């Protein structure tokens, strides 16, 4: 496929990215509760590390 450089204001990339991003968010909302709780565990752990970095 011929590669055409996109202009700076191209919608081709933006539209694709936002469409895929919306799909990703919908997938995350449909995850099992167990996996969602694991995500919360990771977020909580990360927040604790960030708090420690801020204190140091």
């Amino acid at each position: 496929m011929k590669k055409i450089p996109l202009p700076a204001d191209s919608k081709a990339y933006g539209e694709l990215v936002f469409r895929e991003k919306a799909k990703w968010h919908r997938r995350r909302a449909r995850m099992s509760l167990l996996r969602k709780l694991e995500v919360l565990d990771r977020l909580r752990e990360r927040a604790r590390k960030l708090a420690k970095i801020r204190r140091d």
Partner: protein
Amino acid sequence: MSFTEAFKVLNGLKRRKVIRDYVVIGAVGATNYMEPVFTEDIDVVVLVDTDEEYRRTFAAIAQQTEAQDGMHQVLGGVPVQLFPSTIMPLYRDTLEGALQVRFGNLRVKFASAEHLILLYLLAFRERDHLRVRSLLLNIDEGRLQELLDRFDDEENTLAGRL
């Protein structure tokens, strides 16, 4: 130290009859219906009928928890805030209208999306707007209307916040 551990401890308290029943509300409750939302704690409503039962129950819970962190009891390494169902009728209704959710080998009662919306409309902090928007995508509108009819004030404050 995990949210799942905390639910194991809560279920253990229920099994040993330290608490009669409980329902998950707040960000963890909302996570059942939407993308995981960052939170440090678990909010639950605990079933009690009187202030005396509240004092007795909470004293018994405090004896069995790992630590206390302000208003939170630390269960499974996670701070858990326990609200008595006597605080307001909506809490009691949230418990009665809860959904039993199964994850792993646990069964836990989670607030319905419609009840969570009402609780968020009551608190109405900035982050609550976003959560209400997400929760509104998958609800029974008739059920939400019925709850608003029962729990909104005469000025329809909660409905006005939608």
